[in-house]
C-alpha cells in the first residue's frame, strides 16, 4: 500500500469524526431527551445535558398500573412481541421446506421471480381486500389477524433468504444420506438443518425485525390495546397532544432497544446478509 501523506491522514480522521458525530448525535439526543426533565427540555437556551437525571418516564412506561400510559405501552410491547414471533415462526414453517425445494430443484426457479415480485408490491396494493377479509372473519384488531397479514411480507422474504442460504450446501450429502435409507424427515433433521442453522437464524432475525418495524398494516388493522403494536402506539404518542416530549423519547428508546441490541450483537451476520443479498431496505 502507498504511504499516506500526513495531510491526507488528518483529513481522513476529521471526516471519520464527522461521520461518527452525524450518526451518534441524533441517537444520543433521543436518549438525553428520555432522561431530561421537562424544565430542561423546554428551557431556552436549551439544556443539552440535564441538571439531574430523570428516570421517572422509564418507571411510568414500565409500570403496569391500570389505565396508565405504562399499561398501554406494555400492552403494545407484548402485542408487538406476539405478532412478530407468530409471523416469524409461521414464515419459517412454510419457508424452510419451500426454500429447500427451490434450492434443490432448478425447475422451481420461477419461485424466485415470484418472491422478487411480491417484494416490489406496495402494501397499499393489498390493503383494501385484506381489510375486507379480516373484517369478514372478525380478525380486525386481533393479534392473530395482523400476524396473518404479516405473512404476506415475511413468507416470500424468508423463502428467498433461505433458498440462497441452502444453495451452497452440497447435494452429495443428501444423496449419500438417502442412499443410506434416510427418510425425508430424517434427511431434513439430521443432514440439512444442522448445516443450515446459521442461515435459518439469520432469516429468523431479519424476519423478526421486519415484523417489529412494520407500521402501515398495523395502523390499518389494529385500533385498541388488544392488538395495537409498538410502532402504532409510538405514532399515537408522537402525533397526539402529549406535550411530554421526554415520554415520547423514552418510548422510542425502549422500542429501539431490542433491534439495536440485535444489530450490535449480530453485526457480522447481519452485515454479510445485507451486503450479499441486499435484503432489507
Amino acid at each position, binding site marked *: *500500500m502507498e504511504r*499516506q501523506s500526513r495531510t491526507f491522514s488528518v483529513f*481522513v480522521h476529521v471526516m*471519520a469524526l464527522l*461521520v*461518527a458525530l452525524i*450518526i451518534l448525535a*441524533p*441517537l444520543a*439526543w433521543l436518549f438525553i431527551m428520555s432522561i431530561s426533565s421537562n424544565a430542561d427540555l*423546554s428551557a431556552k437556551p*436549551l439544556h443539552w445535558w440535564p441538571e439531574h437525571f430523570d428516570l421517572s418516564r422509564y418507571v411510568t412506561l414500565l409500570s403496569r398500573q391500570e389505565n396508565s400510559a405504562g399499561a398501554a405501552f406494555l400492552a403494545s410491547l407484548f402485542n408487538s412481541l406476539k405478532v412478530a414471533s407468530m409471523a416469524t415462526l*409461521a414464515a419459517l*414453517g*412454510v419457508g424452510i421446506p419451500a426454500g429447500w*425445494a427451490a434450492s434443490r*430443484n432448478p*425447475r*422451481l426457479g420461477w*419461485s424466485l421471480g415470484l418472491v422478487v415480485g411480491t417484494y*416490489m*408490491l*406496495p*402494501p*397499499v*396494493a*393489498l*390493503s*383494501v*381486500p*385484506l*381489510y*375486507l377479509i379480516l373484517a369478514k372473519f372478525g380478525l380486525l384488531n386481533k393479534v392473530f389477524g395482523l400476524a396473518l397479514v404479516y*405473512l*404476506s411480507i415475511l*413468507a*416470500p422474504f424468508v423463502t428467498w433468504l433461505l433458498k440462497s442460504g441452502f444453495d451452497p450446501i452440497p447435494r452429495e450429502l443428501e444423496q449419500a444420506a438417502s442412499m443410506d435409507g434416510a427418510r*425425508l424427515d430424517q434427511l431434513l433433521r439430521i443432514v440439512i438443518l444442522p448445516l443450515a442453522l446459521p442461515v435459518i437464524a439469520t432469516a429468523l432475525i431479519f424476519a423478526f425485525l421486519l415484523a417489529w*418495524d412494520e*407500521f*402501515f398494516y398495523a*395502523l390499518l388493522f389494529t385500533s385498541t390495546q388488544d392488538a395495537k403494536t*409498538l*410502532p402504532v402506539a*409510538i405514532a399515537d404518542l*408522537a*402525533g397526539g397532544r402529549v406535550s411530554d416530549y421526554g415520554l415520547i*423519547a423514552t418510548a422510542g428508546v425502549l*422500542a*429501539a432497544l431490542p*433491534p439495536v441490541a*440485535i*444489530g*450490535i450483537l449480530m453485526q457480522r451476520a*447481519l*452485515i*454479510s446478509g445485507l*451486503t450479499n443479498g*441486499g435484503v432489507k*431496505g
Partner: protein
Amino acid sequence: MFSERRNLRAWLLMLPLLAVMIAVIGWPLADTVRLSLTDARLVGTGGQFVGFENFAKMFSSRNFQSAFRTTLSFTFYSVSTEMVVGVLVALLLNQRFYGRTLLRALMILPWALPTVVNATLWRLIYNPEYGALNAALTQFGLIDAYRSWLGLPGSAMAALIVADVWKNFPLVALIALAALQSVPNEIRAAAISDGANVWRRFRYVTLPYLMGPLMVALVLRTIEAFKVFDLIWIMTRGGPANSTRTLSILVYQEAFAFQRAGSGASLALIVTLMITVLAVAYLKIMRSFAGGGK
C-alpha cells in the same frame, strides 16, 4: 420414476408456501383489481361495476398529479443523496484510521433503529418550540428565531429527506464497502505502479467492482422510497398544505379516510404498475451491466 418422485416431493414442500401466498397475496391482489372497477365503499355492501371510470378520474385528478410529483421528488432526492453520501462514506471507511472498526460498527445503528422511532426522533428534533435543531441553529447564531421546519411547505420535504437519508445512507455505505473490499490488492497496486492518478484509479479499477452491488442498492432503495408511508405519516401526515403527500399517503386517504375502496384500489394499482415499470427498467440496466462484463 425417481425424478418424478423428486418432482412430486418438491411440489409438496412448496405447497404450504403457495397456499399462504395465494391466501394473503394472490387473492387480495386479484380482489384489488376487481374493486378498482367498482364504486365499492369500504364499509357497506356491494358496489357497482363502473369499468375504468376510477382510473380515468384518477389520472385527471390534481391530487393524483401532485402526489405523483411529490413521490418522484422525494424518491429522487432521497435516493440520490443516499447513494452519493453512502459511496463517499464507504471510501472513507476503506481508508486506514484510528477507530475504523468502531465506525464501521456504528453504521448498523441507524439501520437497526425502527422506522417509526426514526420518524418520531426527527419530528422531535424539528419541533418548532423545543426542538434541538432550532436550539442548535439559534445558539450558533445561524437563525434568529425558531422555525416550524415541518410546518412550512418550503422546508417540510427537505426535512423529511434529511431524516430518510440519515437512516438509509449507512446501508448503502455498508454495501459499497463490501464491494470495495472485493477489489484485489494486486490490481490496485498494479494501477498505482502504472502511475494512474486517484481519479483514474477510482474510475477504472474501483468503480467496475462497485457498480453491480450499487445497482442492487439503488433498485432496493428506489422501490422502498417510492412506497414511502410511515416516515411521512408520522412526521407530517402529508402536510403542510399537502406538500408532502406521496402516492401511498393518497391511497390511505382515499381508501381508508374517505372509505372509497373502489377508487382507492384503482390508485393502488396505478402505484403498483409504476413500481413494476421502475423495477423492470432497473433489471434491464443491471443485466446490461452484468452482460457488459468488468
